[in-house]
């Protein structure tokens, strides 16, 4: 299995969730993060003082899935999350050695996929 870690813009969450759902990924974990990169932040004013803020709000999406589907999923995710402007974010692929469904104690890849679509957010 692989864990796909994607840093995306807030407004792209639903699109990315839809991609993962279509591909049969069992779930998604979302974290609010701040990030900087090529897009370097911006200057603010506070009581007249210019302040440089390097980090901007992003969402981190973590989804574990079967290795077979990871490439397809990642490419679809990249498309879904794209605006074309600097700051769109990155996707990283990490190896996962095992997964457990807490509710049942089952191990293995079938814990991270589901059959029918969940239609998250619809």
């Amino acid at each position, binding site marked *: 299995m692989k864990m796909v870690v994607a840093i995306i813009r807030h407004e792209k969450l639903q699109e990315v969730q839809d991609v993962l759902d279509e591909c049969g990924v069992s779930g998604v974990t979302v974290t609010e993060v701040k990030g900087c990169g090529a897009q*370097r932040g911006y200057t603010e004013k506070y009581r007249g003082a*210019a302040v440089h803020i390097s980090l*901007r709000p992003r969402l981190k999406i973590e989804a574990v899935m079967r290795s077979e589907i990871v490439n397809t999923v990642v490419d679809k995710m990249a498309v879904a999350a794209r605006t074309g402007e*600097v700051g769109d974010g990155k996707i990283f692929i990490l190896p996962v050695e095992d997964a457990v469904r807490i509710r049942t104690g089952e191990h293995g890849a079938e814990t991270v996929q589901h059959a029918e679509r969940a239609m998250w957010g619809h």
Partner: protein
Amino acid sequence: MYRPTHDLKKISVASGIALLSALVPVAAFADDTTATSAAGIAADTVWVIVAACFVMFMQAGFAMLEVGFSRMKNVGTVVAKVITNLSVSSIAYWGVGFGLAFGAGGAFAFIGGSGFFPTFSPGSTMDLPAIAASTVPAAGKWFFEFVFCAVSLAIVWGTMLERTKFIVYILFGIPFAAFIYPLISHQLFGGGYLMATLGSQDFAGSTVVHLTGATAGLAGLLLLGARIGKYEKGRANAIPGHNMPLAQLGVLILWFGWFGFNPGSTLNATNLHFADVVVVTNLAAAGGAVAALVTVYLITKTMDVGMIGNGAIAALVAITAPSGYVEPWAGIVIGMVAGVIVVVGVLALDKILDDPVGALPAHGLAGIWGTLSCGLFTTPALAKFNGVGQGGLFYTGSFHQLGAQAIAVTASFVTVFVLSYGLFWIIKKTVGLRVSAREEMEGLDISEHGMWGYPESFMPVPGGVYRPADTPTVNAHASHEPVSTSQGVASA
């Protein structure tokens, strides 16, 4: 709480008078009556000033209500707007508005014509025909009428939150306070045609203040459009505000302020009518909150927190016009109907109009209902007492007063809508009404004001320290997102 002393005094006063029926020098009376009326005038003035302060405090209520119904990225601009509007309207209304609304002269049936840029000295008076009967000095009358103007202006913006350019508040606020509001105010408070000739009743401004504000808000909304993301594929998305406790604190502050708003409109304390108005106002608000709770629960099976507050506000708006004309039981009925109206109104209008705080139903529909309700519930005795119009349908069986109310509503709505639409249209064509899409996504606080309203909710290191930029300007890349403030207002 038995107070024998008090009784004793009254008894001895009585006896004193008895004794007097002998033979006395005038001086004593002249002097005494001076003193007497001085005390009465003082009591009237204290009440009206205190009431006006309560009404001024309603600005805090509107601020909290709007903050609560906005998203966290758009809260700083709300409070900045409230303070700025209160300020520009103070000056505009002092210079021009008050004279147009109440000053003698002018084409009086249409508009007042004196008392611009007034100066006051202790106890000084002005020629204000419609409110001459009040013993309150001119300064007190000015302040009381001004805070009403400020409330009306505050109402305008509820429909336009989270996407309006800051400069718009100023560009619209000044002419609104200087001319648009005074025009309506003159008609129903200041001795204009509707009040003096037609006898339309609006005790404290369901139409003058609330409908006027909501109508301007409607005009602005139509030209401004909905927030990004509100309507997708023909469906209305929900854009929840971020803070119910502050929103409902706002409601409670408004409820409190309304005890200045309606009862203060007597411009008098000595005739004691203001105490009745307090009771009617409170009962109506109560009826509205209860009715809204029941209605929203029946329709949606949930006890929406915001709706309960909207119900109270709508009822307060509705009772504003009849508060000096009706009996307690009628106050409850009027409030309850307003509570139902606001819930149904919010649910219905939300599908087509993006009105974040629900100002159109709460101030518009409820304002119309309240004004009309005088035509149903006004008691002949109170119509006579107030010297405006006559009793309502349920007492007199006559539709006359209802007609007068309908005309007042229609005339006010049309006038305000046309003027406001025109004014917003000009602003739209010149400086523009709306921030850029990118600024709207980033939030108005950062894009228009250079800093979030809740910095620690957005900044990387909560509670941290921020180093000044090495370069005062934003670097190339960043210009993609968020638009720097200078651009944000460049078009202004």
